[in-house]
């Protein structure tokens, strides 16, 4: 897992991971690259990350991948990332095609739902929490339940 306090250098990161995959004699390598789109007048997106829980989340995925003979990779930016730059890359390295295709889907979707990262639109230099695009994490709402 790699965190950068700047936009991601996509070529450099994916090239490094690809080299690792071919040195390991693994046949399938998939990358998912997320890039900031120009929309709704934003000039950038900005990210807060809670690293201790992100690290545990990622370790759990490393174990799940290992059980299927694969390796997962992830890079994310902290702070502002301007439009047309990348904030997020994940990858699966696997001996087998099917495992790679299934794992990248599950890994990216669970990342979206459960990685402790908060997103803000940057408009006129101000950060606005992207509340409508955010997802309550697994276990959310526990403090609002009636206790018994």
């Amino acid at each position, binding site marked *: 897992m790699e965190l950068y306090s700047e936009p991601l250098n996509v070529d450099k990161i994916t090239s490094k991971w690809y080299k690792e995959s071919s040195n390991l004699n693994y046949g399938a390598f998939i990358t998912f690259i997320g890039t900031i789109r120009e929309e709704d007048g934003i000039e950038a997106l900005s990210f807060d990350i809670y690293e201790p829980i992100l690290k545990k989340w990622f370790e759990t995925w490393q174990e799940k991948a290992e059980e299927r003979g694969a390796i997962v990779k992830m890079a994310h930016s902290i702070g502002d990332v301007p439009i047309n730059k990348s904030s997020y890359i994940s990858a699966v390295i696997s001996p087998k095609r099917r495992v790679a295709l299934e794992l990248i889907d599950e890994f990216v979707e669970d990342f979206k739902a459960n990685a402790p990262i908060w997103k803000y639109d940057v408009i006129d230099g101000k950060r606005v929490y992207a509340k409508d695009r955010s997802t309550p994490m697994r276990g959310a*709402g526990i403090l609002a339940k009636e206790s018994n």
Partner: protein
Amino acid sequence: MIKVEFLGPIELDSVDMDIKSLKELSAYMKSSDELKDWAINSAVAVNDVIVTDINYELKDGDRVSILPPVCGG
């Protein structure tokens, strides 16, 4: 004492609270105008482990994190 920290968009400093359980924290958040909405959509971690049982008992020195809805990527 329990340290409660509010992550991401919840713009509050962390607080030290004299509570024994998540139930007490729940009661506190529900009674706060600033926090009652966050109680509804946030997850909770104790010492960086997500907790999903409201009956979880806290120990002195525990650190509780409030995690609002996420959107990485």
